[in-house]
């Protein structure tokens, strides 16, 4: 149920009480179950504040990049600290205002201070001609700015930090050295980021825009970490397919990430982790529908079991699977079940390809059946899966062009028909409500 449904429900409750449909305690209970969101804080105002902070911060960095070498070292270093101290004073002022401080002031202060920290360490390294890599600079910058997330409860700092940490991991994925200097440290940094978010907002879900920034960032960071972990294995092909299997575990963890009941009822586009997890899992299932991939995945599976990094992503995936069972998230569990397909590769190519095809067909049917039984599901995705499977197999087959053409037309018509049926059903259910 979306927030607009909650608004409607709250508007109806007084009338239902007056009409004697509901008692006062029952109305209160409904209000608790379907709470109203706090009044909006003006997205435009926040965006303008963030944009202003970005422009001011970028301007300061550009001014410092001019390199005022006629001024002398002490003055230049003093100039490096001036924006930092001013931004710290602004943040202090915002914090002292407590709850009365408008949200956009928090975002502005957090972002300005973050940029000022970056400018300060950049000018120090400019004055002393320090070398070092951009990834080292980025990590120091992010770690110094990250505490502003719980202190100012700034979404902008959360967004910048999640992107910066993922960028660090991607930039560090080919680095050779001890594990904490490579992308393998990303899961630890991610836990730090999540701890900071928890200190700031508790279990409250981030706003949708932040989700769409954070989720792809986290996926990229974990992907980079998996790449480094798997590159330990010298055999290129073994590495590649082992890597694909680790990414599948990451996708399952994202897909089945536990949500509150309200979170589960939100529309799909508000849950980027589910969208990305679903896309990966289905792509993986399609790979498994080709018998040729069986040998490589079977080898990768043997390496996966001995790889410690598999536990880092495998244990959360397993825990989330258990929670998904508990909350009866059957549609998502059906999608995540593609993880089991590589096991059939141990039985040989024939089992593997067959299992992949049967799984995709069963998944498509299950998504349609679950929806018809009133469960949360994605029937159009189910139909799309069946259609794609039939078309792919027809394209691969040795059938003549006439047979292929006719089958394409039949599948296309069936798909259009099913889409029309769903459209009519949704329309009639809306009219009834």
């Amino acid at each position, binding site marked *: 149920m979306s927030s607009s449904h909650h608004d409607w429900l709250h508007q109806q409750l007084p009338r239902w009480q007056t009409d004697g449909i509901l008692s006062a305690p029952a109305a209160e209970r409904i209000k608790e179950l379907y709470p109203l969101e706090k009044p909006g804080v003006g997205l435009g105002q926040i965006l303008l504040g963030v944009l202003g902070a970005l422009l001011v911060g970028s301007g300061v*960095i550009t001014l*410092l*990049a*001019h*390199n*005022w*070498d*006629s001024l002398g070292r002490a003055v230049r*270093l003093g100039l*490096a*600290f001036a924006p*930092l*101290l001013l931004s*710290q004073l602004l*943040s*202090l002022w915002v*914090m*002292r205002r*407590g709850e009365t401080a408008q949200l956009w002031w928090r975002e502005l202060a957090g972002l300005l*201070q973050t940029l000022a*920290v*970056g400018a*300060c*360490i*950049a*000018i*120090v*390294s*400019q*004055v*002393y*001609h*320090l*070398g*070092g890599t951009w990834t080292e*600079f980025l990590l*120091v910058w992010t770690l*110094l700015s990250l*505490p*502003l997330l719980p*202190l100012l409860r700034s979404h902008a700092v959360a967004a910048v930090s999640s992107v910066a940490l993922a960028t660090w991991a991607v930039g560090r994925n080919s*680095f*050779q*050295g001890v594990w904490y*200097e490579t992308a393998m440290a990303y899961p630890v940094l991610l836990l730090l980021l999540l701890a900071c978010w928890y200190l700031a907002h508790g279990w409250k879900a981030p706003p949708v825009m932040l989700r769409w920034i954070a989720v792809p960032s986290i996926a990229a960071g974990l992907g980079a970490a998996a790449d480094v972990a798997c590159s330990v294995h010298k055999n290129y092909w073994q590495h590649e397919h082992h890597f694909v299997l680790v990414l599948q575990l990451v996708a399952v963890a994202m897909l089945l990430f536990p949500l509150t009941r309200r979170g589960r009822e939100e529309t799909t586009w508000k849950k980027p982790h589910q969208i990305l997890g679903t896309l990966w899992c289905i792509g993986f299932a399609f790979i498994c529908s080709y018998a040729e991939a069986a040998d490589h995945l079977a080898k990768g599976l043997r390496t996966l079991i001995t790889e410690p990094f598999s536990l880092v992503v495998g244990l959360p995936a397993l825990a989330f699977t258990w929670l998904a069972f508990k909350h009866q998230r059957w549609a998502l569990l059906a999608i995540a079940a593609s993880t089991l397909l590589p096991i059939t590769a141990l039985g040989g190519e024939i089992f593997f390809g067959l299992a992949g095809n049967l799984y995709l067909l069963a998944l498509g049917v299950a998504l349609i059946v679950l929806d018809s039984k009133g469960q949360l599901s994605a029937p159009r995705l189910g139909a799309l899966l069946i259609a794609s499977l039939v078309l792919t197999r027809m394209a691969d087959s040795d059938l003549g062009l006439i047979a292929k053409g006719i089958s394409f037309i039949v599948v296309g018509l069936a798909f259009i028909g099913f889409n029309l049926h769903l459209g009519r059903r949704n329309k009639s259910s809306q009219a009834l409500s």
Partner: protein
Amino acid sequence: MKALPLVAFAVVAVIQCLVPLASIGKYEQVLEKGQLIKLKCAAPDPYDPLRGRYLAVRPTPQSVVSDIERGQRAFVTLKLDEEGFASPVSIGLERPKSGLYAQVERSWGDNFDWPFDRFHLNEKLAPEADTWFAENIRSAKGITAEVRVLDGTAVLADLSVDGKPMRQLLAERLNAKP
């Protein structure tokens, strides 16, 4: 307003200042008390969006045979000739107990990377450095990096050409133009 968040903010603010201040203290000490060494180098002119224009500093004597793996930090022991130019003698993972040495990072083959790779310039001087370098790339004049070294920490102090500071040389060329 509760006191704890304010105290936490104060701690964070102090750390944000202390990290760059600690670097400043360390490098100032090296510049003040460190031994001067010279390194011959090549210097083309790229750009860093955060820190502005700089000359890429690539000292020439960079290789010394050892089996230390790529990416590992190591200590290179240096010897100076009569003109003060440094060359590497040996490289090891353990910090030498005495003598002239600098911390470096092992790169490809027998090469190693110094902890500095750039000399930042004012954006007005940087294009002049481009021109100067194009004109002098084949001449006998070489760019010398003047580096201060103290307890293994090396800081690039200046770049010079025939004993003249690079900045001064470029400023003179710029002023001489109509």
